[in-house]
């Protein structure tokens, strides 16, 4: 092979290598990021749980002997722990309305149900407005406090909240 032929081959190889380098360096198509769980911190960090439904307020405060209500009456441990475990595992299924004109259509808005979780120092860890079940009953509408977007959250959250109500110290008010 002549020197000219060798040079041509080297040039061709370099072109091909350059092409590969350019095309392969392009970022791979990214899968949509999985939404964060509703409770993004370890459940052990939660020291206070409050569920407000109209006039009714259920409070669970973590103490040395487990969970108790605002009056110091002990909670059965399981329903509070189960609720926190569910919040730590549940991720929004969908954003059903990024900016609803009438949040009341989803059971959200002033006077609606609220679920608030706080750390031992009072720092809010999660604040959710809770709306109605969706028509198929598979989930319920919710939105994070201070945000407009309405989320659909798995119906297991409604089940855990019902367990919490049933286990309230002093009976289900």
């Amino acid at each position, binding site marked *: 092979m002549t020197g000219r032929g060798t040079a041509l081959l080297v040039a061709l190889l370099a072109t091909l290598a350059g092409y590969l380098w350019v095309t392969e360096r392009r970022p791979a198509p990214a899968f949509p990021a999985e939404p964060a769980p509703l409770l993004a911190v370890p459940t052990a960090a939660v020291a206070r749980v409050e569920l407000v439904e109209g006039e009714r307020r259920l409070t669970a405060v973590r103490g040395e002997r487990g969970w108790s209500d605002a009056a110091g009456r002990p909670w059965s441990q*399981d329903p509070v722990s189960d609720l926190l475990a569910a919040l730590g595992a549940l*991720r929004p299924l969908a954003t059903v309305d990024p900016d609803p004109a009438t949040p009341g259509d989803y059971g959200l808005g002033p006077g609606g149900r609220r679920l608030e979780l706080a750390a031992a120092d009072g720092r809010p860890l999660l604040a959710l407005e809770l709306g109605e079940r969706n028509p198929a*009953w598979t*989930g319920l509408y919710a939105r994070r406090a201070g945000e407009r977007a309405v989320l659909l*959250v*798995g*119906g297991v959250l409604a*089940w855990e909240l019902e*367990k919490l109500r*049933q286990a309230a110290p002093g009976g289900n008010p």
Partner: protein
Amino acid sequence: MRLYLRLCAAILAAGALTAAADEQPWTLEASNWEKGKDLLPEPVVKRLQKGEYWFKVVSADPGKFHHNYSQAFWDATEKNAGKYDLDEKTCGLKDKATDKIPDFVFGLPFPAVDKADSKAGCKIAWNFNMAGAQGGGGGATFTLNGVDTGGQFRRIKAFIHTRGYQGRHFGPLKDNPESLSGEAIAGALEPVDVEGVSTLTKRYWNWDGQDAVWAYVPSTRRARRVNSASRSDPVAGLDIFADDLNCYGGKVEYYQWKLVGEQTILAPLLQPYPFGSKSVSPTRQLIDTPYMPAGYEVPNAKGAPWWIQQNLVFVPRPVWIVEGQSSDPYYNFGKVIMYFDKEMYRIYWKQVHNRAGEYFYTAMCGYHFVKNDETFSAVFPNLVVGVNDKTNRAALGGRYQSSFLEQSWDPSYFSLRTLTHMTD
């Protein structure tokens, strides 16, 4: 004084009349749905309110209902008190005397369940398992019907044959070389595109072994081992799952169980008291039961097309509410909520969430009891109405008119050879 006596008599008579009226069958329907709001799972109440479902409610005498199981069963249950415990790691049944899995169990292993016991959920599951096993084995030919709002869209006719080694009346079988708790062969008979597709399942009597499941497809003439987590896959694309048989079809050890409550619920039964059986051989007894037509089969039927129209009654029964969850990553269900009879240990309803926490499915599981005398009884799962609330479709399973109990199968029947030669 006479006036006082008359008054007392009148009050007593009124009370007796009221009690009698309470025991009269009544219909729970959309117009009086409030009476049923605490007697049914929430998604079912929603359909009751809309007039899609209604319920013929029948009272059952608690004492008589208790005797749907034989005296032999209840005597064994009483003797089991204090005999068994649970393996901490697996929730497997443990003989306290040996700290090992017991050789043979008959009756409820845990006659008294304390709701404050952290292991109560698993004990309930074991009672369920052993109550269902008392018949020993048998079979039936049944249908699976896919139904949507337009009517039936698919029908499959199939059979199932079972043999139980544990929990059966009359003691253990002589030969159990594979150390099984039970085994089953099931196969499709119709339509022709699925004819011959069949499965063989062997469930091992141990704490940590997975079921061995083989599936046979005639077109390939091969039996392939399949994952036992496939119990949570839809059967033939219908809204029904292998795990719907008895409302839970897995090994107790597959789930983590948690008792979360108790209530009264409407139990779907063909009739509140047992059917008799007739012997057709020294080891085989036949049971005839009426067909349960669904809305899609009855002209001008009311309600959802999949709702049972005749031959089903609902008996108010006290139940444990138990959550079950599998840790198997290949199992499709997330949290499952089940309603177990506190005395007869049947699951009447279950609500299923997927692994994302989304509720999607409720199954109603109906039964009938069989008893000839106090030495033998059995309870059959005869109906599953599985409703996918996400897609608003349903599937019906069971509804057979004839079933049988078999005490002595050919030892080699439940084998790969049978599986691969059924269509020969």
